[in-house]
């Protein structure tokens, strides 16, 4: 029995880590900007494509393979630096104060553009670069061989949760973000440059999305369509945790990861529906998600 439980728990954590990276940026952007960014999944896959391209370049030039770890991080920073300010200033800011429908339509349009852009630049074939995974080797746990990279991902997800909490609670930027989230108009009236906060918060969201894609690349393939799948899963996680709740996203990722893994182990035919069944179950009892709360709409 123990032989089955250990792999099940480890797989749940590994799966949850990947899901968390896909969802946390979405929830962060919503908490600050109150915008549901439908293009989030595309930014995730762009992060993956850029990371894979840089890793392939490193391999083709026979550079030190450990550079590929730096490449994963660099690709996320690169994508955030390019797309964050560009999208926020160019598109998203026009939706502030508009209805959710307008926001969703505009970011959905962006999603379609970014998906086609990926096809044009990276083609339609699957991308795969596993150098970081190979470098770290494997470990046998409970009779099952795991990639050390999977265990690293679990640690990275924990680091991101702690890092975001520290950023928001213990830094000046975090306090400014909190002030904007709490009362945007009041924050503006006391001299906080909300535009700057919006650009930074949106770029941080893009960074987290791209980091998720980059970190997933060594163990997953990147192909057209990944953005849409990621988006749907990220929405489910955000809905379970409560939109805008970072800890909520972490707990929701664990729930979704566990639901998926349990399905694969015990009822494989339910694999695809398990995350959404978990979402339905949570929303039936907590319509605003586990960590969400009712907010009054200001008129």
């Amino acid at each position: 029995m123990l032989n089955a439980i250990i792999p099940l728990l480890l797989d749940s954590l590994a799966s949850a880590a990947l899901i968390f990276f896909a969802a946390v940026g979405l929830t962060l952007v919503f908490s600050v900007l109150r915008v549901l960014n439908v293009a989030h999944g595309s930014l995730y896959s762009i992060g993956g494509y850029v990371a894979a391209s840089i890793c392939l370049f490193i391999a083709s030039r026979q550079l030190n393979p450990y550079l590929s770890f730096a490449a994963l991080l660099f690709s996320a920073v690169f994508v955030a630096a390019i797309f964050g300010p560009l999208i926020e200033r160019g598109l998203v800011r026009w939706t502030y104060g508009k209805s959710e429908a307008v926001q969703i339509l505009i970011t959905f349009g962006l999603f379609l553009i970014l998906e086609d852009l990926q096809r044009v630049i990276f083609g339609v074939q699957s991308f795969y670069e596993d150098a970081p995974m190979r470098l770290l080797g494997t470990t046998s746990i409970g009779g099952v061989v795991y990639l050390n990279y999977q265990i690293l991902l679990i640690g990275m997800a924990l680091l991101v949760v702690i890092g975001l909490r520290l950023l928001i609670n213990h830094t000046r930027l975090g306090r400014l973000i909190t002030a904007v989230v709490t009362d945007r108009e009041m924050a503006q009236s006391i001299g906080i440059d909300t535009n700057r906060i919006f650009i930074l918060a949106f770029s941080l969201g893009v960074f987290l999305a791209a980091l998720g894609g980059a970190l997933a690349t060594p163990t997953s393939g990147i192909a057209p369509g990944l953005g849409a799948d990621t988006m749907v899963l990220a929405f489910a996680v955000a809905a379970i945790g409560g939109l805008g709740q970072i800890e909520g996203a972490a707990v929701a990722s664990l729930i979704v990861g566990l639901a998926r893994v349990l399905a694969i182990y015990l009822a494989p035919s339910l694999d695809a529906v398990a995350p959404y069944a978990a979402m339905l179950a949570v929303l039936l009892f907590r319509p605003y998600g586990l960590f969400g709360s009712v907010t009054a709409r200001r008129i």
Partner: protein
Amino acid sequence: MAFKGISIVVARCLSSLELLFGLHRGLSQANLRLVADGLAGALAIGVAAATPAAAQEKPGSLGLGIFTFTSGPAAAYGMPGKNAADLIIEEINAKGGIEGVPVRATYVDEAQGAQGVIAEYRRLAADAQNQVMVAALSSANCLALAPLAEQLEVPTVGWNCDTHQLLIDGKRKYVFRPNGNTVPEFIAYAIYLLDRKPDVKTVAIINPDYAFGHDAAKIFTAALKALKPDVEIVAELYPKLGSPNYQTEISRLATARPDVVFSNLWGADLENFVRQAAPRGIFTSSQVILALGETVLQRVPLPDGVIVGVLGDGWWMSPDAKANPETAKFAERYKARFGEYPVFPSIKMANTLIYVKAAYKAAMQKNGGKWPTRAELADAMKGSKVATLTGTAQTRADNDGLVDQIIGVTVKTPAQQFPVIGDMVRYRGDSLMPQAGQDPLAWISTLKPEFAKSLPKPGSYK
């Protein structure tokens, strides 16, 4: 029946005209749709009326609608098919076309989904110049298009679709498959496995979650159970088509500790699975069967001893293929153009176009050298036997194909930088097919170990 159909269309046209004359009253949405339907009906009548007369004259060009995946994860399988079509059509046109008529292909991306594929098929079929549809790659799309092909009377050649359900009722007049289907393809794996590993006790299956994956699992399991009843299926996993990550499935397979892991994953899914499963020891702890493994030999470092095949006879390095100078030339041209040797979807597409070309030749021989109608072309396909790049494609009375099955294991060779197929067997196409009209699963359940013993053994195809 035909009269009734024409009457309905005429009635629709008349009702449309009536509605058009009443335009001053304004049209409701429903009536507007009726008008559009009616006009489409009138157009169809016009096309149908014009077609037979035009069909006797050689057209300026012969249009082919070619359906494959050119985007999405399935493009890893679909693009080699398109590449092969480009090459073969170029070659045909360089030699003056089919019976003197140059070929012009219109490609349709199957990644758009069944609704889009159906709409594209209708659009192409409405143009009389498009005489043949090479459709499709996906079994689901083949099943969706088959009734349409019959309704519009357009010869439709399934270049890849494997599902045995496509022609099971034996009533199709315009739908053909110059390939094997899931029945011979997956019985072959069961027989090869038991020849190579007769002591197998436990099997785990990981197939894509749609008809092809489920059908293959059903047929492979049924054949195993019939030939070795004590075999136990210890895990059956059906990940979503296009899934990029199989780590949890791999853990599940590892915990099941099966003697054999069977998979008919394909395209990018297969590449992803192999890349993720290899470092986690699946290929060393179990005998792995990758039914479509040949498609990734040049892209993924597969270890030795993996059972792979080509779902037919389309292995460009098989003894028969090597002996055919046309095949060697095609493989080299393909490599020069696309940077890789053709994989079996490329060969399937090439063989299908050769099949279409042969059908034109046969139809024109039959009707005294006149350009054939769609019906005459379909007639020429029925019961045909065509020499392909890798063997023979025979069409039965039920329009299903008889094609040999080649299976082997991965081996290294100094001649290539990638593993090739060794220890091969070539099963005759007809030996693994039930009779037309027979229920395939019922037929498989009647198979006995003696049947497997009567077939050629691994390593016999040299």
